[in-house]
């Protein structure tokens, strides 16, 4: 039997046991992993044409390239759902030889597809698992692959194409715009992004958040206000942001009305998710906020659909209050108690160095002072946020003797320091500490002189993630903040503006940075302090080395459960 295809190459189907195949495919023996056929199997010739039709081979009137394209298009259409099914149905009926034949044909088809530059058969979109953003993105990507074959990059023939959500692929310009479409807020991408961080979102600062919202009716006004406050750094710091967010959510819940035909446990989480999406666009969520959201959604989902809405809402609001009191406020107090027990952390004559502004550290220092312990504090600060000034004011007003320096002066003063006490935004699974940028610099200087470093952190900020350095994840802030060289903290700016006194923005030499092509500014918000810089971690459950953070959190959860 001879099948002549359009451009004239011949596919020989001989009467012996060789099945039909595309001559481009390598001979059977060369294909790795393919077992040799046993001669005893018989091939049924009558089945071949139907399978050939189904696979699309053997349409003699087309040219090979058009053939391939059409073949691919057909396959692609069947891609998401259907292509599995015909094979599945018939596999039960087929003999071993026929299955082998089908396998070979599919392999040949795959080769043809790849030659035409289309990716392998698309996987089914994930059902249920993963975040909403990821599944949407995966579906997005699949849809995209079907429709824009010529645009797709040529993958190497043997490479598996990794499916990753668009939000994680920001270094690819095509994916960037896709990620943009999924966000509820129209944010302008930074015009001069820093190459090293191209995998992270970098945005221009914009004034009117509300005007950029795509669909406004879903966002509660309390959350809108909150988002603005986050973006302006009026509310900053893990605990403050988390508490403010939870207070806003309490309002959302109390104003919530279940739509007709839906139940509260099913619908409310999606409402919360929308608020969270909006907030994450004003500023990246802190680890503290993520834990709170997770707990809240858990509480909502386990509430019974039978309870009347008002009761459910009251219960949820009560749970939120409980979370705030137990895991933030009481935890903070417990940490101060634990740290001062037997004068562990702060003794008479100590010189304590702290960096930035941490509410827990401030609480500890004030408590120690209230107990009459005699110590000095050196506050190290970092540009451009200059948050240390806030903590300095509180300490001075409490009557503690303080010194204030920029972080560059820390190595000079480190020989006088007896302990370094810092707060954290999150403690990672490998014991590393994610905190305000500059913390690692201070801890490094401390380690050089063997000064012990104590990290104070509530257990709800312990994270299961691991980050090796400050590049894998970070928050890139507004680069224009680096231009202002007045050394005034943002709060002082507001004060000056209201009196209309002198210039609040003293633009330095690089005020013209946008016009200089090769000049970029990088304003990082977080950094990762490696575990071996940290001597001890104090949480409300006790003092542990920072590598044990997760263990203690899990045990505490088990104990309370």
């Amino acid at each position: 039997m001879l099948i002549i295809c359009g451009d004239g190459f011949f596919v020989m189907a001989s009467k012996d046991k060789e099945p039909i195949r595309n001559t481009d495919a390598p001979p059977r023996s060369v294909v790795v992993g393919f077992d040799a056929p046993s001669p005893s199997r018989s091939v049924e010739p009558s089945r071949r044409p139907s399978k050939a039709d189904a696979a699309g081979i053997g349409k003699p009137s087309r040219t090979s390239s058009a053939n391939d394209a059409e073949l691919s298009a057909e396959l692609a259409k069947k891609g998401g759902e259907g292509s599995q099914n015909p094979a599945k149905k018939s596999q039960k009926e087929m003999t071993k030889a026929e299955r082998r034949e089908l396998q070979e044909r599919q392999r040949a088809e795959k080769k043809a597809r790849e030659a035409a530059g289309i990716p392998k058969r698309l996987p089914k979109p994930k059902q249920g698992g993963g975040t909403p953003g990821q599944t949407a993105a995966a579906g997005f990507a699949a849809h995209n692959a079907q429709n824009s074959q010529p645009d797709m990059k040529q993958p190497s023939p043997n490479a598996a194409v990794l499916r990753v959500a668009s939000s994680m692929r920001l270094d690819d310009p095509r994916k960037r715009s896709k990620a943009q479409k999924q966000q509820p807020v129209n944010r302008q991408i930074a015009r001069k992004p820093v190459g090293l961080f191209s995998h992270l979102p970098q945005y221009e600062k914009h004034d009117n958040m509300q005007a950029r919202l795509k669909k406004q009716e879903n966002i509660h006004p309390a959350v809108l206000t909150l988002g603005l406050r986050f973006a302006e750094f009026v509310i900053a710091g893990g605990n403050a942001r988390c508490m403010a967010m939870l207070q806003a959510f309490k309002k959302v819940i109390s104003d919530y009305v279940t739509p007709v035909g839906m139940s509260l446990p099913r619908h409310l989480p999606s409402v919360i998710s929308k608020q969270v999406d909006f907030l994450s666009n004003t500023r990246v969520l802190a680890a503290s906020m993520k834990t709170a959201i997770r707990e809240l959604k858990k509480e909502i989902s386990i509430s019974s659909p039978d309870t009347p809405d008002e009761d459910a809402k009251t219960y949820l609001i009560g749970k939120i209050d409980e979370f705030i009191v137990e895991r933030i406020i009481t935890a903070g107090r417990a940490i101060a108690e634990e740290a001062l027990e037997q004068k562990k952390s702060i003794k008479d004559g100590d010189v304590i160095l702290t960096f930035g502004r941490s509410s827990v550290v401030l609480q500890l220092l004030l408590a120690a002072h209230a107990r009459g312990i005699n110590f000095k504090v050196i506050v190290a600060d970092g540009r451009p946020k200059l948050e240390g000034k806030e903590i300095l004011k509180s300490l001075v007003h409490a009557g503690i003797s303080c010194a204030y320096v920029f972080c560059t002066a820390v190595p000079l003063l480190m020989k006088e320091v007896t302990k370094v006490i810092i707060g954290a935004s999150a403690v990672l699974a490998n014991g590393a500490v994610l905190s305000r940028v500059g913390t690692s610099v201070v801890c490094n200087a401390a380690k050089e002189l063997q000064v012990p470093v104590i990290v104070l952190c509530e257990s709800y900020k312990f994270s299961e993630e691991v980050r090796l350095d400050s590049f894998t994840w970070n928050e890139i802030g507004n680069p224009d903040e680096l231009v202002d060289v007045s050394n005034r903290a943002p709060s002082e700016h507001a004060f000056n503006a209201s009196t209309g006194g002198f210039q609040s923005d003293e633009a330095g030499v690089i005020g013209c940075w946008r016009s200089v092509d090769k000049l970029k500014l990088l304003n990082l918000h977080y950094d990762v302090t490696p575990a071996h810089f940290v001597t001890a971690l104090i949480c409300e459950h006790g003092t542990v080395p920072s590598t044990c953070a997760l263990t203690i959190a899990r045990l505490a959860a088990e104990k309370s459960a």
Partner: protein
Amino acid sequence: MLKEINYQIDSLVAKLRRRQIVGSYNVAIATSRLLRNVVAASRCNDVEQLSALVKEVGSRLEGAQPIELAVGNMVKRVLHLIKEEHNVETEASDAAETAETTSESDDFGERRRNFVADVKQSIEEMIDELENTSTNISNQAWEHIHSKEIILTVGRSKTVEHFLKVAAQVREFQVIVAETAPSYQGHEMALALSSAGIDTTVITDTAIFAVMSRVNKVILGAHAVTANGGVVAVCGSQLVAAAAKEYSTPIVVCTGLHKLSPSYPYDTDIFNLCINPDAVYSFEAGDIIDSVDIVNPHFDYVGPEDVSLFITNVGTHPPSFVQRLIYDTYIVDEE
């Protein structure tokens, strides 16, 4: 001595004291030129008198601004040159004496004038070398910077700036500049580099450790180099050194020979200068200013164990070689 020379000396002393001349290079040039004039106008009869004169002028200049170590360095170099010239001359005259008898007085006067002229010549050469320092250092740039490297630098150093600009003509690389608050010298450096077409990113000092994991090399300028191979550099360098040690990133220091100082850092604080704290926490900013100590150091000391290489105008050397260089260039064993 001539009144004019005295006037020049007084003028330089005043400028140093008021910090109107700042920076190792400027100070070194000014000192060398002054010493050349002093030597040229001197009426000394022999090497001891000349040395004593130079020492006296030198101690006045050093006293005006002790932190500018370049002053002392140049004085010691001139003394070394004087002694060298004297040695050369003595050898020549010894050789001549054994060969023939000489008539005393005429030759003596002439020898003295030649001696002074020779010393002045040497000082001129030294000034030439000074003026070409930057070029000689930058000529080695292409050997040390490779393509697609990410280089970190701190503050503003004209030497490093020139070094990187010359390298950029041959290689393609990126530079990250730490801004060194509150003087913000890093901003000026970044502007200068990017205007020359180098891909530059400005970071805050707090991000130094964070970015160090991606940095291939650190290039620093120096205010002075101590006799053990340590470096006195802009404040912030010690943070960079600690971070670089953590990631095993090499630190390269670009410096002219005039910054090599024979003093040992027996107390690292002695090399520091704490300047106006207003830049850190401004006086107008608040009521708490009275109760808070504010420290604003200008320099940092980085030990020789952290520096990988010195690139100088006479070649590249490891820190262990600095002592040898100093011995060759300066009079060290003085009373």
